[in-house]
């Protein structure tokens, strides 16, 4: 079986970002608007059809006669932690949101921001008033009409849920007004990232009435939205069942009437189920198993671009050796990144020279690579005052095979430059607590962007108060200043230039070195077609069909 | 000529056991018969072969036993050649066995009722009839409140009652020949007495043949019509009980009798020496190493069983020398002791 490469090349991403057509406001809106207007006409006609007829057509559109299954069975290793979009931000929750609670805009397979529930929009001159034109006749999956109260409720929740890390994205919102066809959002200040914020899951449209019915909380329940599907059942640690939304705005979609996210913890079991045809698609296939799985009959491994990065978090508060930039640079020279990538990723990833992912907008492509130079590293260490190297404790999440692999490779590589790495495994919750208290010398950091904008990670990295420089105790006033400027810069060219400078400083100071940028792989049966995973991790399921 | 009233005839029975590669000669050349209503006793020290012989009669020997020679005929049937089906009809119904220790011989987790009803198998009896009969039997052996006791377990019975319960169960099969293997050994004297009386009564009422095995001559004298003395697997003397007690004609029997404690004035007089190992028997007469009459021929030739008087057999080269020896009972001079 040939390996299907749905890999969108990084070049496209880079080209896209340089072409200033990314997440910024006006130009995109203007180009989108005419297209949307044309689309609007057609869709108005379609929407004019009877709701019931539309429902019937949706049913009919799910082709039974053509010999297709009526349920997509998707197996994953864990349940979503929480389907509350302000809190549940783990992988298994975030990937589901687009199917159930889409918002005004979405990210497509190419990483572009495109219309979702809003078919077009404009921004005022001063950049403070965003007017979104909704698709006509939007309804929630239970048939109730979408009203402006629902939008207000959703944005209010996003902004005011105290424990939510994501509330900062709704923070700029001053007011939400409008009617059943328009949503007008006023923000406090011009913000180049605002449209990207609107693609986030916490900005999804949720039914207020449903929330009230649940007693004013999503505890023990889930949100109701206007997406392709809606959740009908959640058997914890077993499966989440979704049904097609009969009132979905896109006629004829979703193509398959049911989805079941099966929770199957054991990798072998998942793979067996896929091979046996009990499930149609699965995530979290270990890279080491990809070749074997792809070779099996009827099954293919598909690669999707991802912004996912793994970092070496060097905490100079816990290990003073890390405080000297020369030491950090020496460690970079003493690390053979290519070997790491070859051994861990089996080709499903690439090097990254920045804390930002090469797939993210604004990635600085002219950053130099660190060359692998053992002697040079040792010399630099000696210069820094460590001629005999030093000791470091590398704390790894227990039970994670990839991390263990990385740990042993680093240990081996650094032993050659005189740095003695002591590996310790720790249960995740304890690790997090100690990491938070800045007590761990070195850990593996992880990050995946959720939106097409470099500000998400940059802000996190530079938020010293909250996370002490991504738990490294590094900070840079220069970067903070640049970031403050970039956050107000509406011109993309200038904005990305500022980000380039930030990335240069971080690179030179080895603030948060990246081990690699990994892609994601999914294993699916050949009978399944139409599955899309966006570079920011959203599953698009409305197009999926599974042949019998 | 066969006596028609012979229940059991045993001829030249030899039983060997194979243990760890050794050949244990447990029983050698044993011949005897028991008539209907007759009580015979086997007496001898532990390991002399009396239990083994009795077990051979119901073919309850261990797997490593083999019978190289001999016959066991019960009412014209060769027991040693019986099929499993025939054996099942024979055991319990024709021949029954009372074991030495009732606590271990009865199943501790089944009631007396269950174990007794096992003897009613094959009989066309209703539930009420079975219960009636069971209660009758318990009463017969002298167990009070038999209705209650039927549903009890063996551990709930006291010493003598246990033995009675076992006897009742054995009787439930209505055997014609009762084998009692040391039935009183584990009991204290007063209860011993009761059991002996019971056996005698039953024997009279039911006309059962009895084979009583014991090491206690006193018990033999109270129950048995005739007795065989066994030593190292051999019969060494056989005659009726009175004669044995009065005129034993074998040095071993003399030793046994002498060893009976006599009042409180005399010391105990055990037989010097030890019983021989059955794997490594001495040449010639098995008793020779301990015999006060031992001469050279005794160590070379096994003495044959010889009828020294009518109905009185002894296996000794010099049996005649025992004549005149007075045993426990003085038959010739009444009144004198």
């Amino acid at each position, binding site marked *: 079986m040939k390996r299907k490469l749905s890999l969108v090349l990084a070049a496209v991403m880079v080209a896209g970002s340089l072409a200033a057509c990314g997440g910024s406001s006006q130009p995109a809106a203007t180009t989108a608007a005419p297209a949307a207007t044309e689309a609007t006409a057609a869709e108005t006609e379609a929407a004019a059809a009877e709701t019931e007829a539309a429902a019937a057509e949706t049913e009919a559109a799910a082709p039974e006669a053509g010999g297709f299954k009526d349920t997509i069975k998707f197996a994953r290793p864990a349940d979503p932690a929480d389907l509350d979009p302000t809190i549940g931000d783990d992988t298994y929750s975030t990937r589901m949101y687009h199917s159930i609670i889409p918002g005004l805009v979405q990210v497509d397979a190419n990483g572009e921001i495109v219309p979702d529930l809003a078919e077009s929009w404009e921004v005022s001159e001063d950049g403070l008033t965003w007017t979104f034109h909704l698709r006509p006749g939007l309804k929630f999956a239970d048939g109730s009409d979408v009203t402006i109260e629902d939008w207000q409720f959703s944005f209010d929740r996003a902004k005011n849920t105290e424990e939510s890390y994501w509330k900062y994205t709704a923070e700029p919102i001053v007011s939400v007004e409008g009617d059943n066809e328009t949503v007008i959002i006023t923000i406090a200040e011009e913000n180049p990232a605002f449209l990207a914020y609107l693609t986030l899951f916490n900005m999804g449209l949720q039914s207020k009435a449903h929330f009230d019915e649940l007693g004013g909380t999503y505890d023990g329940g889930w949100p109701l939205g206007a997406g392709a599907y809606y959740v009908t059942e959640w058997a914890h640690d077993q499966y989440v069942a979704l049904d097609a939304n009969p009132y979905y705005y896109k006629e004829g979609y979703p193509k398959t009437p049911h989805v079941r996210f099966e929770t199957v913890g054991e990798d072998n*079991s998942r793979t067996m189920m896929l091979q046996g045809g009990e499930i149609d698609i699965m995530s979290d296939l270990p890279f080491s198993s990809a070749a074997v799985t792809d070779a099996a009959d009827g099954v293919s491994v598909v690669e999707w671009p991802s912004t996912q990065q793994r970092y070496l978090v060097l905490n100079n508060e816990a290990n003073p050796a890390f405080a000297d930039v020369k030491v950090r640079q020496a460690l970079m020279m003493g690390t053979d990144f290519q070997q790491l990538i070859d051994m861990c990723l089996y080709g499903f990833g690439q090097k990254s020279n920045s804390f930002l992912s090469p797939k993210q907008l604004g990635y600085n492509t002219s950053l130099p690579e660190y060359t692998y130079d053992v002697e040079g590293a040792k010399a630099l260490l000696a210069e820094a005052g460590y001629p005999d190297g030093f000791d470091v404790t590398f704390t790894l999440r227990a039970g994670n095979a990839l991390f263990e692999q990385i740990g042993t490779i680093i240990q081996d590589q650094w032993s050659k430059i005189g740095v003695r790495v002591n590996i310790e495994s720790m249960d995740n919750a304890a690790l*997090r607590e100690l990491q938070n208290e800045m007590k761990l010398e070195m850990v593996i950091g992880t990050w995946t962007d959720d939106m097409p904008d470099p500000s998400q990670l940059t802000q996190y990295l530079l938020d010293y108060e909250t996370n002490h420089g991504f738990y490294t105790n590094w900070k840079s006033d220069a970067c903070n200043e640049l970031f403050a400027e970039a956050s107000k810069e509406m011109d993309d060219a200038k904005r990305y230039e500022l980000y380039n400078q930030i990335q240069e400083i971080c690179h030179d100071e080895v603030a948060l070195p990246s081990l690699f940028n990994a892609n994601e792989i999914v294993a699916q049966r050949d009978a399944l077609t139409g599955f899309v995973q966006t570079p920011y991790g959203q599953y698009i399921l409305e197009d999926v069909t599974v042949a019998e | 000529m066969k006596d028609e009233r012979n229940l059991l005839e045993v001829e030249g029975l030899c039983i060997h056991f194979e243990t760890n590669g050794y050949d244990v000669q447990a029983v050698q050349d044993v011949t005897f018969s028991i008539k209907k209503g007759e009580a015979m006793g086997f007496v001898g020290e532990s390991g002399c072969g009396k239990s083994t012989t009795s077990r051979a009669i119901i073919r309850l020997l261990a797997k490593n036993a083999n019978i190289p020679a001999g016959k066991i005929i019960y009412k014209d049937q060769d027991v040693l050649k019986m099929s499993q089906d025939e054996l099942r009809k024979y055991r319990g119904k024709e021949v029954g066995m009372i*074991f030495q220790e009732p606590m271990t011989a009865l199943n501790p987790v089944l009631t007396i009722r269950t174990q007794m009803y096992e003897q009613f198998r094959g009989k066309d009896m209703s539930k009420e009839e079975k219960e009636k009969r069971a209660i009758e039997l318990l009463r017969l052996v002298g167990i009070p409140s038999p209705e209650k006791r039927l549903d009890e377990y063996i551990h709930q019975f006291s010493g003598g009652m246990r033995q009675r319960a076992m006897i009742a169960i054995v009787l439930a099969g209505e055997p014609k020949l009762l084998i009692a293997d040391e039935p009183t050994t584990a009991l204290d004297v007063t209860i011993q007495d009761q059991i002996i009386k019971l056996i005698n009564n039953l024997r009279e009422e039911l006309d059962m043949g009895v084979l009583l095995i014991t090491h206690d001559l006193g018990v033999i004298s109270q129950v048995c019509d005739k007795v065989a003395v066994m030593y190292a697997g051999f019969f060494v003397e056989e005659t009726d009980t009175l004669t044995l007690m009065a005129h034993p004609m074998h040095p071993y029997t003399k030793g046994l009798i002498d060893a009976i404690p006599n009042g409180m004035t005399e010391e105990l007089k055990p037989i010097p020496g030890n019983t021989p190992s059955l794997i490594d028997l001495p040449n010639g007469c098995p008793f020779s190493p301990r015999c006060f009459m031992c001469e050279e021929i005794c160590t070379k030739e096994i003495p044959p069983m010889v009828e020294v008087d009518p109905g009185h057999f002894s296996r000794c080269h010099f049996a005649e020398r025992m004549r005149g020896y007075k045993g426990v009972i003085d038959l010739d001079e009444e009144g004198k002791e």
Partner: protein
Amino acid sequence: MDVLNYVIKRILQMIPVFLIATIIVFALVRAIPGDPARVMLGDRASQEAVDLLRHKMGLDKSIPEQFWIFFKDMLHLDFGTSMKYKLPVGELLISRLACTALLALVTVVFTVIISFILGYVAGMKKGSFIDLIIRFYALFGLSAPSFWIGLVLLDFFALKLKLFPVSGWGETMGQHLKAMVLPALTSAIYVSGILIRNLRSNVIDISKSDYVDFAISKGISPARLSIFHVVRNALIPATTLLSLRVAVMLSGSVVLETVFTLPGLGNLLVNSIYSRDYPVVQGVVMMFVVLVMLINLITDILYSLLDPRVKLQ
């Protein structure tokens, strides 16, 4: 009446044990490093947000205070709400227990069938070739790792022959039972290893006993001898052993639940420890304590029923 009094007495004895166990678990689980609020909110949440959530969940109170609240609720049969699943702990426990209990039940059935037959045959035919095979099987069952056996069974019966589901336990009772076959078999292979050895040695001892000889001397049929005298007595210690194993089974097996993807107590406990879901950890452990004590009680009663020589005290 005796049995009833005994049961009441035992239950009264259980109460202090239960209380002490509860206090220990309550304190222990809070003593390990790791903050449930941080686990819930993820790496990116600020300390502020975490503290907020801690306050919401009542975790910023002192431990004795937390315990008092917990204790009061427990008296109303309210065992708290899971921080991870946002469901009442009682509900969660019962649904997981249902799965684990069904698995235990099916395992017991398989174990009894396998071990009683093989143990009896091995004992009766001691020293023969069949005895050797059975003893080898028992040794294999005891030593082979259950995840390996489980995967092998899965691969052959579920994947290749498609007779059973590869994962999950289904929705209807019929599907549940079908899903239980392979995991129960995996578990039974191990437990029968233990029981076969015990039964075999019991049977060997009993075969030499006087009451078997006596029973033979009564001329009863071989079938009756086997069942009423040999097996009936051999199964007494074996039943006690099995009954105690049931307590182990009811605590859930993480290995089996992971390999066969079953929503049982084992995974619930492990996952809730990972996420520091205090109410669930407490709930599960408390339930185990009660279950183990109950099983011990049942074992003792069962034993006294099987062996009339044993008196309940």
